[in-house]
């Protein structure tokens, strides 16, 4: 008896501790409950598997970019061997995040090759024309057939000029592809130097004084500043240009004046002005600050949930969970009387222990997670049913109450443990192999199964022992729903 009392205090202590935890460390809600966007990023590697170091390196760069984006409470974590998950809470549009994250952002400085002037001039002219077409496409009615045809004709002229034909169907995609090709061709007219994005210590943006365009300013490290001076010195006063290349595309070409012929451009800073809009300038700034990605990435999944839908999901799930608990409780009390009452109390304990564990570990609660929790309520009661049926049989067989309770718990033990193990095995596999979405379900159901072993075997036994210390609660008919003929 004494040992049981010890258990009773332990259980009450656990309950108090759980409530304390829940008050002080509120549950973390997943995006499907609070609204927001989730992006799954896949690392692309042509040959071989992505190594752990590479994944961490990509993670570090993206982390910097995300921080520079200035989204509060964003969360980036790795998933499996070659994926990352980015969560942006609230009313975020995943579009700008995707643009900033998706680029490799490899910045290079190149100097022009010999005798390429005429080629370069032509390409620059075509790029100028193409930019104009893109501007025209963006303004006005996109569905206007005549305009589309006109743009297409002009595009074909440019394509013929540069011997290129895009395989894309849509007009806008063709325009973008062609521009990419030209920028790439321009970059190929330049020689690589040893100055790159690695030599940057900072990047910024400001509006140009003469017009509405934005420019991005670069600050080099000491070493980078020297390299930059060296490079600019080598082409100062010549007709060779300096090109700034981002991800293999030349975004800006500039000449270096003859006044720099002796020292090059010193001071360790430079500016890129390539007709940036405010948005584009900010994106480039964030990318450059974060550094370039060691491996390219692709966004393979985007899931956006409005904040209102999130709160609706919470309300719905709460309804389902509470109704489930109430109906199960009614069913149990109706069939098992006092035993049913005991199971309801241990079920309530079960609920608290579960939630407390979620905030302790912590487990982020998602919709599938709630489904796992609700399902685990049913399974936790299953264990009680097994025990109570045994107790009932013992009682019908004419055993005393205390003996029936003891042997009921004892004899149901092995079936309960078996059942819990098979469910736990499924959850374990799901947790190891599943996606993020599935993991939520596996985590809550798996934890539920473990806690239910404790509550259904130990808590209900302790409560039952406690209740049976009262003489008035020891009548057999309080334990048998209907007196069945023996």
């Amino acid at each position, binding site marked *: 008896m004494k040992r049981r009392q010890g258990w009773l205090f332990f259980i009450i202590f656990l309950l108090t501790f759980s409530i304390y935890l829940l008050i002080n460390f509120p549950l973390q809600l997943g995006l499907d409950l609070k609204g927001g966007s989730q992006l799954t990023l896949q690392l692309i590697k042509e040959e071989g598997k992505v190594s752990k170091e590479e994944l961490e390196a990509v993670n570090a760069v993206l982390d910097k970019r995300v921080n520079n984006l200035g989204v509060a409470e964003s969360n980036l974590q790795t998933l499996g061997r070659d994926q990352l998950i980015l969560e942006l809470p609230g009313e975020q549009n995943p579009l700008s995040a995707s643009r900033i994250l998706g680029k490799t952002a490899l910045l290079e400085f190149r100097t022009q090759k010999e005798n390429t002037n005429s080629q370069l001039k032509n390409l620059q002219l075509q790029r100028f024309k193409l930019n104009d077409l893109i501007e025209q496409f963006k303004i006005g009615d996109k569905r206007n057939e005549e305009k589309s045809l006109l743009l297409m004709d002009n595009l074909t002229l440019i394509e013929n000029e540069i011997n290129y034909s895009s395989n894309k169907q849509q007009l806008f995609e063709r325009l973008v592809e062609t521009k990419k090709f030209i920028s790439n061709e321009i970059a190929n007219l330049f020689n690589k130097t040893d100055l790159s994005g690695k030599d940057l210590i900072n990047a910024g943006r400001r509006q140009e004084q003469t017009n509405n365009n934005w420019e991005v300013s670069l600050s080099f490290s000491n070493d980078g500043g020297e390299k930059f001076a060296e490079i600019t010195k080598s082409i100062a006063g010549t007709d060779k240009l300096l090109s700034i290349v981002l991800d293999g595309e030349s975004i800006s070409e500039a000449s270096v004046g003859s006044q720099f012929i002796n020292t090059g451009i010193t001071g360790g800073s430079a500016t890129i002005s390539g007709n940036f809009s405010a948005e584009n300038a900010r994106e480039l700034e964030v990318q450059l600050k974060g550094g370039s990605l060691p491996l390219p990435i692709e966004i393979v999944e*985007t899931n956006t949930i409005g904040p209102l839908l999130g709160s609706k999901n919470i309300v719905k799930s709460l309804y389902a969970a509470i109704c489930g608990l109430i109906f199960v409780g009614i069913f149990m009390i109706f069939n098992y009387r006092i035993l049913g009452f005991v199971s309801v109390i241990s079920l309530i304990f079960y609920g608290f222990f579960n939630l407390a564990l979620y905030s302790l570990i912590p487990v982020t609660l998602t919709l599938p997670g709630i489904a796992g929790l609700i399902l685990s309520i049913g399974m936790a009661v299953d264990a009680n049913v097994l025990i109570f049926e045994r107790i009932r049989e013992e009682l019908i067989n004419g055993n005393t109450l205390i003996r029936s309770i003891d042997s009921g718990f004892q004899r149901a033990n092995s079936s309960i443990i078996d059942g819990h*193990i098979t469910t736990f095995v499924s959850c374990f596999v799901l947790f190891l192999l*599943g996606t993020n979405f599935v993991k939520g379900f596996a985590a809550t159901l798996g934890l539920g199964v473990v806690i239910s072993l404790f509550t259904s075997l130990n808590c209900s036994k302790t409560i039952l022992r406690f209740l049976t210390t009262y003489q008035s609660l020891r009548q057999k008919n309080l334990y048998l729903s209907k007196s069945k003929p023996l």
Partner: protein
Amino acid sequence: MTSFSFNLIKNKNKIFGFSSFLILLSLIGILYSSFNTSFKKPINLGMDFIGGNELRIERSCKEECENISPDLVIEKLRTFSNNKNLLNNIKLQIQNDNSLISIRTPYLTIEESNDLISNVDKILGPLNYDSKNSRIIGPKLGKKLLTNCATSLLVSLFAISLYISIRFDKKYALFALLALFHDLFIVFGIFSWLGVLLSIEVNSLFAVSLLTIAGYSVNDTVVIFDRIRENLKKDSDNYNKIIQISVNESFRRTFFTSITTLIPLLTLIIFGSYSLFWFSVSLTLGILIGSYSSILLAPSFLIKD
């Protein structure tokens, strides 16, 4: 001794007949779905597995939402884009008294999807953007998810089989597993039919539900086999009779445990979020079939002629 008296020995063949009928029906569903030109897969795979773009959004109507014709909406959507692959594969659903709209298209880039989202209110009228749900899944990820789900299923079935064969002797283990595969096959078959008849799709949560059903069904069977073994130790002379008695003794508890598990699932179906609806349905079906197979089918295997 108990109020249940079901003559398992006599009804054994009826049970086998019923199960064979269900399995045959499932098999027909799976084969029909596999060879039907519009599916070509044993089950209607959803966006999780094939990739695509889905937008679910609520209309904000003053009182009741007026009818809109899906064909007209699709027609108007066509004018937004000239991407042919997109336009030929738009699926539109209007639910909840015209208030909930879901638009499914093949895979779109984030830019294209954003374009669609920001223009769709021009076609559908005012929309409640705060309650939108938009998902884009790339085709590569879809394939990965599919293999991932298949591996999870196989690995955990293997793990459960291993556990069962260590826990029981060969005969019991074999029959518990037969009952398990019976349950999974029938749930799979039902969803094949649902795919063919109502174009219900399965997503990764369906695979999860199959796994959960597997755990649950085995668990139920184990309890009954335990009871049979326990009773056979006491009296091994009337083999068939003991099995029948054990089944009848377990009837009440299997019935009750199923009900206590079904109650929360039914509340999920009724009150829960739409994304959990078919998941809960599949679990409910699985638990119904699993209980049947544990209490009636699995012990029938043990009965000797």
